[in-house]
C-alpha cells in the first residue's frame, strides 16, 4: 500500500533501538541486583536497624580472699523515642510528668524528648524509687533499659587503687582502668528495625545479642590488712594532720601488694563529688626525696660490693666535708663521735652513709641504684606510674653522690622504694610489684593466674641477710624504736626529708617523715612503707610514721597468723606466768580492761566504743604476763571478724536478685511478703557488719506497660 519500504525499515530500526535499550536495562538490573546486591542490602540494613546497646555487667573485683570490693548492680536508665513522643501530641504534659517524677528541670526534659533524634537518654541510673514512679506513669515514647552500675560496697576502702568506672561502664581510674578490657565484658545489642520516621515497624525484625559479662579479678590486696592500713592512716591524720599520708604493704617474696592506702582519699561510689586531685594514687604517681629510708639502698650496695665491713669504725663530728661543701649530720656538733658501721646505721648518721657512697663511687652506686629499680617504672599494673627523677649519671659529681647516699637529690616513688626494700628482704631478688593475682571468667573458671616475677638478683643473699640483721638493730636499739613489735623480729629504717621547694632549695618548714621496714626479718612476710607528707608538729619519721608502721605490722602479722618468734621474756629478762587469753569480744570495755589488769596484762584500747568488737591476740592465745592485748571498739580488723558493708538499695529487686546481691556482700536476709522488694531494713546506705541481717519487705510488682528492652 502506501507504506513505503523505507518507512518499514525505519520502524524496524526503532524497534531494534528499543530492544537494545531494554537489554541495557536488564544488564543494569543484573548488575544492581546481583553484583552490588549484597553490599546494597547491607547498607539498607544498616540504615533501618537501630542498635540499642545492652551493657555487659562489669566483672567483680575481689580481694585476695574473695571478698568483693567492686560489684555491678542493675539500675534503670530512661530514654525517649522522640518520634513516638511527638506522635502522642502531649509533649508538654509528658515533660511535666517526667520532670515531676525525676525531680529535674521541665524545659530540659522537653528539649530532650522532642529532639530530632531516634533515641535520647532522659536520665541514666535512676534511683529505684524515682524509677518506679516514672514507670507507673506509662508515658508514650518513654522507655527504660536496665543498665549495670558500679557499686563499691566498701566505699572509700582502697579507692585510690580501685579507681572507679563511669556512667558507660568504662573504667576511668585505678585498677578499673588498667584492667578495663578484662572487666568490661562485651556489650550485647537489641537490633530493632525502624522506618524512616524513626517509628518501629509493626512486624519488625528484632535481633537480640546477649551481652557477655566481664571477667572478675582477684587483687593481691588483702582487705583486712587494707583495713588496718586505712585505720592507721586515719590515726596519723588525727594526730598530725599532714598534707598527705600513705602506706604500702607488700609481700616481699612475691612482690604482691597486700595493702595500699592514702589520705586524703575519696569515695569510689561518689567520685564526682571529690576534687580530681584526690583520685590520684601518689604512692605510684609522685616522686619524692626519700631521705634516710634510702640509706638502706646505699648500705646494701656498700655491703654487697664489700666496701664496708660490719665492724669498720667511723667518726662523726656533726658533718662531713665533701670537696668544698659541708654535709651536716642530723645530730649537729659534736655529732655521733666514734662508732662502728652498725652503730652508724642505727644512728642514721649522715657522714657514715656519705662515706659509703663515696667509697662505692659513681659506677657502683648507679649499678645498685638501677639494680634496685630506681629510674624506671616498676611495672605495677596501675595507671599513671612515675619513673622518678635521678641525677644524671654522666653529670654526677662527688657532691651529688654524697647527697644521693643519704637519700637526697634523687626523687623516687614510694612503690619503687618498697619494691627495693622487698628485694633486700627477699634474699636480694627484686620482684615485680603486682596488684592483680588472678582473673576469673564469668562462669567461675580461673583463666589467668599472675605468677610472681623475679626481675633480677640485685645483691647476694648473704648481703641481704646482713641488711636484715642491721635493720633489726635499728628497730631494737636505734632510731626506729617506735617500730618495735613485741614478739616479732622487726627491721626498718626511719626517714625524715626536707621537701624541695618548687624553684629550688629545701624547705625549712615542710618535711616528709617516713618509715620503711620488714618483718619478721629472719623470714620476711611483710615490707611496709609509711609516708607522712608535711605533718603538723613533730615531723621525724621515727615519731610520725613508725607507730603506724608498728601497728600495721603487728596487726597484720597476727592476722596472717605468723607465729611469734621472740619470747617476750627474753627481751625483758624476767620469768613470767603464761596464760590463755579469755574471749573478750562482746563484753563491756571496762570489764575487759579489768579482767586483763587482774591477769597482769597490759591493754591498748583503740576506738571510742563501749563494747569490745575485736581483740588481738585472739581468745585462747597463750600469752605471758605483762604482754599487751589490743582491744578494738570501732573499726574491726581481723579475719572472720566483722567488717562494715554499705547496704545497697534493693527496692524493686526480686528474690533471685536479692539472693545474688546479699550473697555477694556476705549478708543474710529475711523476706516478708512476695513479689519485689518495696522496703528494706536497714535502709540503703547504712552500714552493717558482714554476716549481718537484712530484712526485706516484698510486695506486688507495679504493672507497667513500659517496654522493657533489657534482659
Amino acid at each position: 500500500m502506501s507504506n513505503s519500504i523505507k518507512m518499514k525499515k525505519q520502524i524496524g530500526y526503532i524497534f531494534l533501538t528499543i530492544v537494545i535499550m531494554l537489554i541495557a536495562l536488564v544488564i543494569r538490573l543484573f548488575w544492581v541486583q546481583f553484583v552490588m546486591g549484597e553490599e546494597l542490602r547491607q547498607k539498607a540494613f544498616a540504615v533501618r536497624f537501630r542498635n540499642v546497646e545492652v551493657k555487659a555487667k562489669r566483672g567483680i573485683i575481689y580481694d585476695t580472699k574473695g571478698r568483693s570490693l567492686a560489684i555491678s548492680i542493675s539500675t534503670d536508665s530512661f530514654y525517649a523515642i522522640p518520634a513516638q513522643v511527638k506522635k502522642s501530641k502531649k509533649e508538654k504534659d509528658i515533660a511535666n510528668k517526667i520532670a515531676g517524677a525525676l525531680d529535674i528541670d521541665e524545659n530540659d526534659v522537653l528539649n530532650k524528648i522532642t529532639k530530632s533524634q531516634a533515641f535520647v537518654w532522659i536520665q541514666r541510673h535512676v534511683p529505684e524509687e524515682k524509677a518506679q514512679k516514672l514507670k507507673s506513669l506509662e508515658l508514650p515514647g518513654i522507655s527504660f533499659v536496665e543498665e549495670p552500675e558500679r557499686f563499691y560496697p566498701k566505699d572509700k576502702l582502697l579507692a585510690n587503687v580501685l579507681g572507679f568506672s563511669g556512667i558507660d561502664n568504662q573504667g576511668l581510674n585505678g585498677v578499673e582502668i588498667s584492667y578495663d578490657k578484662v572487666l568490661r565484658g562485651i556489650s550485647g545489642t537489641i537490633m530493632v528495625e525502624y522506618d524512616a520516621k524513626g517509628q518501629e515497624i509493626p512486624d519488625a525484625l528484632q535481633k537480640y545479642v546477649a551481652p557477655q559479662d566481664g571477667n572478675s579479678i582477684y587483687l593481691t590486696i588483702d582487705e583486712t590488712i587494707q583495713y588496718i592500713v586505712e585505720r592507721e592512716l586515719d590515726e596519723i591524720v588525727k594526730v598530725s594532720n599532714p598534707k598527705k599520708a600513705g602506706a604500702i604493704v607488700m609481700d616481699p617474696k612475691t612482690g604482691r601488694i597486700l595493702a595500699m592506702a592514702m589520705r586524703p582519699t575519696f569515695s569510689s561510689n561518689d567520685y564526682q563529688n571529690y576534687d580530681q586531685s584526690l583520685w590520684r594514687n601518689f604512692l605510684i604517681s609522685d616522686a619524692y626525696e626519700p631521705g634516710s629510708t634510702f640509706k638502706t639502698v646505699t648500705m646494701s650496695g656498700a655491703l654487697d660490693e664489700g666496701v664496708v665491713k660490719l665492724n669498720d669504725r667511723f667518726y662523726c663530728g656533726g658533718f662531713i666535708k665533701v670537696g668544698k661543701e659541708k654535709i651536716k649530720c642530723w645530730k649537729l656538733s659534736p655529732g655521733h663521735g666514734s662508732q662502728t658501721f652498725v652503730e652508724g646505721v642505727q644512728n642514721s648518721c649522715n657522714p657514715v652513709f656519705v662515706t659509703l657512697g663515696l667509697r662505692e663511687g659513681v659506677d657502683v652506686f648507679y649499678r645498685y641504684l638501677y639494680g634496685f629499680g630506681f629510674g624506671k617504672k616498676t611495672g605495677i599494673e596501675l595507671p599513671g606510674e612515675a619513673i622518678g627523677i635521678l641525677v644524671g649519671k654522666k653529670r654526677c659529681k662527688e657532691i651529688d653522690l654524697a647527697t644521693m647516699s643519704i637519700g637526697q637529690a634523687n626523687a623516687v616513688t614510694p612503690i619503687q622504694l618498697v619494691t627495693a626494700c622487698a628485694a633486700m628482704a627477699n634474699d636480694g631478688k627484686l620482684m615485680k610489684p603486682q596488684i592483680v593475682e588472678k582473673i576469673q571468667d564469668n562462669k567461675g573458671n580461673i583463666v589467668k593466674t599472675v605468677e610472681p616475677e623475679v626481675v633480677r638478683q640485685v645483691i647476694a643473699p648473704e648481703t641481704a641477710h646482713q641488711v636484715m640483721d642491721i635493720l633489726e638493730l635499728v628497730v631494737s636499739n636505734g632510731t626506729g624504736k617506735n617500730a618495735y613489735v613485741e614478739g616479732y623480729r622487726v627491721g626498718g629504717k626511719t626517714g625524715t626529708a626536707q621537701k624541695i621547694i618548687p624553684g629550688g632549695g629545701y624547705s625549712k618548714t615542710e618535711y616528709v617523715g617516713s618509715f620503711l621496714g620488714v618483718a619478721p626479718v629472719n623470714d620476711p612476710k611483710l615490707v611496709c612503707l609509711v609516708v607522712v607528707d608535711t605533718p603538723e608538729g613533730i615531723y621525724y619519721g621515727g615519731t610520725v610514721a613508725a607507730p603506724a608502721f608498728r601497728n600495721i605490722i603487728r596487726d597484720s602479722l597476727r592476722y596472717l597468723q605468723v607465729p611469734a618468734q621472740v619470747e617476750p621474756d627474753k627481751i625483758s629478762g624476767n620469768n613470767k606466768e603464761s596464760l590463755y587469753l579469755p574471749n573478750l569480744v562482746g563484753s563491756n570495755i571496762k570489764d575487759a580492761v579489768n579482767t586483763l589488769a587482774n591477769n597482769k596484762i597490759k591493754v591498748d584500747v583503740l576506738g571510742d566504743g563501749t563494747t569490745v568488737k575485736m581483740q588481738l591476740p585472739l581468745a585462747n592465745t597463750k600469752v605471758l604476763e605483762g604482754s599487751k592485748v589490743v582491744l578494738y571498739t570501732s573499726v574491726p580488723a581481723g579475719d572472720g571478724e566483722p567488717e562494715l558493708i554499705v547496704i545497697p538499695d534493693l527496692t524493686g529487686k526480686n528474690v533471685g536478685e536479692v539472693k545474688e546481691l546479699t550473697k555477694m556482700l556476705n549478708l543474710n536476709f529475711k523476706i516478708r511478703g512476695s513479689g519485689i522488694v518495696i522496703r528494706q531494713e536497714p535502709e540503703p546506705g547504712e552500714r552493717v557488719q558482714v554476716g549481718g541481717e537484712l530484712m526485706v519487705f516484698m510486695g506486688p510488682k507495679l504493672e507497667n506497660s513500659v517496654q522493657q528492652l533489657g534482659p
Partner: protein
Amino acid sequence: MRLKKGTPDLLLFFVTMVLLAIGIVMVFSASYYDTLENDPYFYVRKQLTWGLIGLVAMFVMMKIDYFRLKPYVNIIFAMSFLLLILVLIIGEEHHGSTRWIDLGFTNVQPSEIMKLCMVLFLASKLSQIGPRIKNFSSGLAPYLLLLCVVGGLIMKEPDLGTALSIVGTAVVLLIVAGMRLKHFAFLGVAGMGAVAALIYQETYRLKRITGWWDPWAYPSTEGYQAINSLYALGSGGFFGMGLGNSRQKLDFLPEQHTDFIFAILGEELGFVGCFLVILLFFLIAWRGYRIALTCPDVFGSLLATGITTMIVLQAFMNMGVVTGLLPITGISLPFISYGGSSLLFSMLGVGILLNVSRYSNNL
C-alpha cells in the same frame, strides 16, 4: 476506504491486562504503609477505579475504527493544547510543580493527555503531507516549532520527564515519516543544546545530574532518592523479599508508589519480577511495531508506531531512572505507577493500537 476487520492482537491485550494487574497489586503494596493510619486502601482504590475506567475506555477505542478519529484530531489537539495553557493558570501546585487541574471529583494531568493527542495529531498530519517532510522549511519546520511550543509549555510546569518523552516520541514519528537524516542530526544537536540549557537554567536539574553521576557523594540530598532506589533493588536480589515485604517503602524511598514503584517491585519480587516487567514491555514493543509494519495505511502505521513508542520509551526512561542508568527526571512507569491520567491515557492508547491491529495482517 473500506477494510476488512479482523480480531485484535490478543497477545497485546493479554500483556496489557497483566501489566494493569501488576500495577494495581504493586500500588497497594507500595502505598499502604504511607496511609496506614488513615486508609491503607486510599491509593489502590483510586488506582482500581481508574483502571476500570481505563479498561472501558480501551474497549471503546478498540471498537472505534482508528481512521474515523482523523476528522476530530484537530479539535482534540486544540483542546489538549488549551488544557496545557490552562494548567499553568489554574493548576494545582504540588512539590513545586503545577501539573494538575482540579476538576472537583478528580485531578487531571494535561501533559498526559497531550502525550496521546500529540501522537494522534502528528500521525494524522504526517500521513497527509507525505514526502513533503523532507523539505525543511515547508515540511519539517512547523512541526519542530509546534514541538518547541508544547515542550516549552510542559517545561513551564515544570515536567521535564513528560516533555522529553513527548519530544522523543514525536521525533521517532518524524523519522518514520521520512525526515531527512541531516535534519535529524541538526535536530539532535539542537535538542542536546536545549536540554543542556534547560539543565543549567534550573539548579535542581543540575543537582539531579550530579546526584545521578555519583549518588554516594550526596547521600542525604541529591543522591538520596537514587541511593534508596538502589537499596531497594539490591535488597531484592534474585527472588525478592516477597510481595509486601519491601522495607524501602517505609518512607525511606520517596515516590515509592509513583515514579519509583519499579524499585519497590524489584525489592519485593527481585530480578525475576523486574525481568518479567521488562519482558512485558518488550512484548508491547514487538506487537506494537508489528502492527505498525503490517498496517494498511500510513496514518495507522504512524499511529501504531507513536503509541508503541510513547509507552515503551516512557517505560524505559522510568526504569532507567530507577536503576540509576539515567538521571532522575520524574516520569512514571506506564500501567504500573499510581496516577489516573497516565493510566487512562495509556489504556486509551492501547485501545487505539488494538483497533489498528484489527486491520493489520488482514491484507
